């Protein structure tokens, strides 16, 4: 009956109860949307970084990531690739061989990054072929190269021009060759755009005198939320004395730090919002308590132990909280689902600026229960905390004074 009384008490002042529920409803909705946008943006950042360069995870020769030496190469073993592909979250694994060299035309030179890749695999991950603005994308037997637009502009070369590359090969061998530019691409990452040269894997292996060798398998996944689990599974499958398996978060720890810092900033904003709401809820519950002092006096007079009155107050607060939380989830989750599938397109100068920075000009949301349940839990906690003082107030009520108040 305590629960029944608590429930009915809520509707003694409908307007006040509805106002309190509404404030919780809008606070939770707002918090969910803010968190969804935040997490969506992080997902987009990770996706962009993973898809355009590093992959969601990589497998290297053990120690490669530490020294990044051209000498820390692994043989492109079909057996290793088969083991990697046996994981059900792995969508693709392709070899890559990266090195650095000096690029020279007849008048200019520039340090460049050479990425030897499997063109089909690279295209599957990043749609790199769509970024080619002039000439042709690579094929697996291409002997020519494609270069970043920024690099092409700097060197003053275009499709069909020849570029000299001079670098260091495997185990100290010299690497020098002339290559025809078969395409120019606009890489989304501005730094890459100014220094990258893509070659087919056999061509770069030939350049550095490292036939059938690579320095990484770049992994594409079906579900990027399960990358850590996939990495853990691969670590069990592969010989860790010979290989290292790293997720994107290990490959780009600075991005993890950036995301975590931004995430905490966003959370602080939400906490400020909740503090404001909490004061409103607290005053409502306190008002509901103070105006019923006489009633509580009567209840203790007729034999209701105070613990049951505390329970009644707590239930009243939790009812308000639960209605607010449940309605906000019921209304908010479909909004998140819609927004996840219909991201907001940023147009105009702002969109162009984002694109120049290598980001897709969209505001992406993510619909995940991991975003919703902490808000629900936090709000329930706020309701409980807001009831503490009113309960203390009731504990201090003197029955006889309350009855005659």
């Amino acid at each position: 009956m305590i629960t029944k009384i608590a429930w009915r008490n809520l509707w003694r002042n409908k307007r006040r109860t509805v106002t309190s529920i509404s404030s919780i409803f809008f606070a939770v909705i707002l918090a969910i949307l803010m968190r969804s946008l935040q997490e969506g943006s992080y997902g987009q950042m990770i996706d962009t970084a993973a898809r355009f360069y590093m992959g969601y995870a990589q497998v290297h020769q053990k120690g490669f990531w530490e020294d990044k030496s051209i000498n820390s190469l692994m043989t492109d073993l079909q057996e290793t690739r088969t083991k990697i592909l046996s994981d059900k979250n792995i969508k693709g694994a392709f070899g890559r061989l990266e090195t650095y060299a000096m690029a020279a035309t007849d008048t200019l030179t520039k340090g460049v990054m050479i990425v030897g890749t499997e063109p089909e695999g690279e295209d599957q991950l990043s749609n790199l072929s769509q970024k080619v603005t002039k000439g042709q994308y690579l094929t697996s037997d291409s002997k020519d190269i494609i270069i970043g637009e920024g690099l092409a502009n700097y060197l003053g070369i275009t499709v069909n021009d020849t570029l000299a590359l001079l670098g260091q090969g495997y185990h100290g061998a010299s690497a020098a060759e002339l290559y025809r530019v078969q395409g120019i691409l606009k890489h989304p990452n501005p730094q890459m755009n100014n220094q990258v040269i893509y070659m087919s894997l056999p061509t770069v292996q030939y350049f550095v005198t490292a036939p059938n060798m690579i320095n990484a398998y770049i992994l594409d996944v079906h579900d990027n939320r399960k990358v850590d689990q996939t990495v853990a599974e691969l670590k069990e499958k592969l010989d860790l004395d010979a290989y290292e398996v790293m997720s994107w978060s290990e490959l780009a720890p600075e991005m993890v730090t950036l995301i975590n810092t931004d995430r905490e900033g966003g959370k602080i904003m939400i906490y400020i919002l909740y503090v404001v709401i909490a004061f409103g809820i607290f005053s409502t519950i306190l008002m509901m308590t103070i105006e019923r002092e006489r009633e509580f006096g009567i209840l203790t007079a007729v034999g209701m132990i105070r613990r049951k009155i505390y329970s009644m107050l707590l239930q009243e607060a939790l009812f308000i909280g639960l209605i607010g939380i449940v309605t906000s989830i019921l209304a908010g989750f479909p909004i998140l689902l819609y927004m996840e599938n219909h991201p907001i397109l940023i147009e105009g100068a702002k969109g162009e600026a984002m694109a120049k920075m290598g980001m897709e000009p969209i505001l992406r949301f993510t619909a995940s229960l991991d975003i919703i349940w902490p808000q629900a839990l936090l709000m329930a906690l706020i309701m409980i905390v807001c009831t503490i003082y009113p309960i203390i107030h009731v504990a201090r009520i003197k029955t006889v004074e309350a009855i005659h108040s």
Partner: protein
Amino acid sequence: MIEIKNLVKTYNADTIPVKALDHVDLKIEEGEFTAVVGPSGCGKTTFLNILGGLDTPTNGTILIDGTDLHNRSSADMITYRRDHIGFVFQDYSLMPVLTAEENVEFIMELQGRPKAERAARSKALLEAVGIGDKGKQFPTKLSGGQQQRVAVARALASKPKLILADEPTANLDSKSTSDLLDIMRQLNEKENITFVIATHDQRVMDRAKRVIQFDDGKIIDTKI
């Protein structure tokens, strides 16, 4: 039997002391129907509060069936009141969110009695006070007289031996007062429940078996 010995209640003992009860000695036998009367501020309500365990005396003791009423913790006092004393207040003091039936059942629920027993007793008590057909009504839909009958039924719900009523007829018209007093007297006689009623109402005094007159915190007269 209730035995009150040398009961003193002083308010503001540290500043300007006010003696609400001044060495009151009294015996109330089981089954009495007693009216406590006197002018406002004479100590009637204080006497009832202390007799009901709602307030504590400054001095003196109240023995109910030989046991000191106030020799228990405040938590024990709440359950003692729940199980042994019924209260009727001037303004009825029903729970506005509960129906008449639920108001009566509520006390029994606090006692942990089974639902079927609660429902049956609640119905029977409302029948006994003459509003058996109003069980599903909320207090706001009942007249003052009907609400006070529900309050009496609620006071009886826990099967107490003592009912304390503070100005129970103050807000009622003549007909309602007369009906309520009939009900209380019937319960007093049939079930041997002791009633102690603080009142200004001559109609209550006329129906009481004993009238105790208070003035300045003292009993100045007792009429049987």
